[in-house]
């Protein structure tokens, strides 16, 4: 049974629904992230779980108990804020000890637990510092220690890394994942950063205007987005709207006017139900039209409109009869502007979405 369950939850702000009939289940010990652009309702969902917000309708069940009306301070959930929200007037030690002291724990035990937790986040020796004397990464680790030391039943992260620089972000997310797995603590993680969510999650829920568009393991979402919205959000930059589809053994045959394309069926047999073909710029391949394509079918001829240099590869905007396609390709001698080319669509990379 799921540890957390949001059932038919609605949240409105200024008479506008942010979440409507929202449902979500999370298994014990898993890290689930809510991914989406700002305004998609991911932070609202997290704040609802934390208890900072009340639902208009619906239920929030936690471990089989109705938590809908349990106030924040009685929930025993750890929350890590985007701004870290450390107590500015308290030392690192007092910040971490805050929750334990509220629980009337003996000072000797407080000391033992705080010390151990600061070791876990590699901040031993920083006990006496004030938050303003710490770097961004150190503050974030104090915030994590403070949330973890109370041995919360659930850990919640609200864009915890967005104020850190790129290198630190990568280190910190590995750190968060390590701690989460070591302690086996159920976690909900909110971010707008696709890579961040994919790298650390057991499950990712891609959200769009208050609804979950797709909830699955990161690799499933990455390869097989369920909808056009998810596909666009995770970087499928090219789309072809097909007019008909039919079963062709291991593949699906698609047509648009006189053009025929093949797309491989998904391995698990599910999905692939739509009529919209999606493919990443990295997965398309280009040949000069003077050269014979090594494979027949799934090609489209076009003309290079714009060419930009990305460092590792070149990016081309190729104009075709089906519109403009974006292609990233590594090559020594790039195509020139105006050059005639053939675009090849590998059938196992062409995904059908709704």
């Amino acid at each position: 049974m799921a540890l957390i369950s949001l059932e038919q939850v609605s949240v409105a702000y200024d008479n506008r629904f942010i979440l409507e009939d929202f449902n979500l289940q999370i298994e014990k010990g898993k890290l689930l992230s809510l991914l989406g652009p700002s305004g998609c309702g991911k932070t609202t969902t997290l704040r609802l779980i934390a208890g900072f917000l009340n639902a208009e309708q619906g239920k929030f069940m936690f471990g089989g108990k109705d938590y809908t009306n349990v106030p924040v301070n009685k929930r025993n959930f750890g929350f890590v804020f985007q701004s870290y929200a450390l107590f500015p007037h308290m030392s690192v030690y007092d910040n971490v000890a805050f929750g334990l002291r509220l629980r009337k724990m003996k000072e000797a035990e407080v000391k033992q637990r705080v010390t151990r937790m600061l070791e876990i986040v590699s901040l031993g020796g920083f006990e006496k510092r004030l938050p303003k004397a710490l770097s961004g990464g150190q503050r974030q680790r104090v915030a994590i220690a403070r949330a973890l030391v109370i041995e919360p039943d659930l850990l919640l992260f609200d864009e915890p890394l967005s104020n850190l620089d790129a290198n630190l972000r990568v280190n910190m997310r590995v750190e968060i994942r390590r701690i989460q797995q070591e302690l086996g603590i159920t976690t909900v993680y909110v971010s707008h950063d696709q890579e961040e969510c994919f790298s650390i999650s057991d499950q990712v829920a891609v959200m769009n205007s208050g609804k979950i568009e797709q909830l699955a393991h990161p690799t499933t979402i990455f390869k097989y987005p369920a909808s056009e919205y998810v596909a666009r959000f995770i970087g499928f930059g090219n789309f072809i709207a097909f007019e008909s589809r039919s079963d062709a053994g291991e593949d699906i045959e698609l047509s648009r006017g006189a053009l025929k394309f093949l797309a491989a069926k998904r391995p698990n047999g599910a999905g692939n139900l739509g009529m919209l073909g999606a493919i990443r710029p990295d997965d398309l391949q280009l040949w000069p039209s003077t050269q014979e394509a090594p494979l027949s079918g799934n090609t489209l001829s076009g003309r290079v409109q714009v060419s930009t240099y990305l460092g590792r590869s070149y990016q081309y905007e190729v104009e075709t009869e089906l519109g403009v396609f974006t292609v990233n390709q590594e090559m020594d001698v790039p195509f020139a502007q105006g050059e005639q080319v053939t675009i090849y669509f590998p059938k196992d990379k062409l995904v059908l979405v709704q």
Partner: protein
Amino acid sequence: MKEGNRGLSLYTLLVFVFLLGPLVIISITSFEPGTVLKFPPEGFSLRWYRNIFEVSMFMETFKTSIIVSMLGNLLALLLGVPAAYALSRFEFRGRDTLNALFLSPVLIPGIVLGFTLLRYLIVVYGLPIYAGLLIGHTVIMLPFIIRVIASSLANFDFAVEEAAQSLGAGRLETFFKVVLPNIRSGILAAVLIAFLESFNNVDISVFMTGPGVSTLPIQMLTYVQNYFDPTIAAISVILMVLTAALMFIIERLMGFAYFTKR
């Protein structure tokens, strides 16, 4: 320094002379040994400083002023801290109106406010003079309390409050353990500024004082009407020193930039 700034320097000097001149003259004349205030003084004496402590009305009204300013301050804090908190923390309808309402005692001419308070508190509701005086002073201190504390709260990240709650603190506990310690210097500055405003106030007090109850500035006013000896100059010097000392403390606490920005 650049050459071209000489004219500007002279101008600045003139402004300072204009502003500080009277204060300097009063300070010098307060040491006059004779019975009539004059400049320059004919000698040096602390006679009139001694006189302050010998005229019982000064001591009595000084006590009243201190009590009214301190008690009024306490009342203004009790009203002002929650108001400042609510105005900074929450978005609600009518917030701007409420904000303007709380600040209005500074905008309304003191004489109008004083008369209105007299008309209602004393004439209509028949409150004792002392109570009326206290309420009047609370009203004029409130805007300063709210303004200064609100600007202190403007720098406060309210996520910190949520953090405390998520760790198990109730609302009141959160306020006293997390919010209050972080706006402590703001509150202290607010208290000092409000104190100065109240202690030096004339226009409200002149309406709200009466037989047997008076504040120091009003007593000084009355004294000047009847005597022309340098006692008033001596008191003025003491008040100036007191004010300067408080301003110095406020500056030290949070800097004047706090009040000029925004």
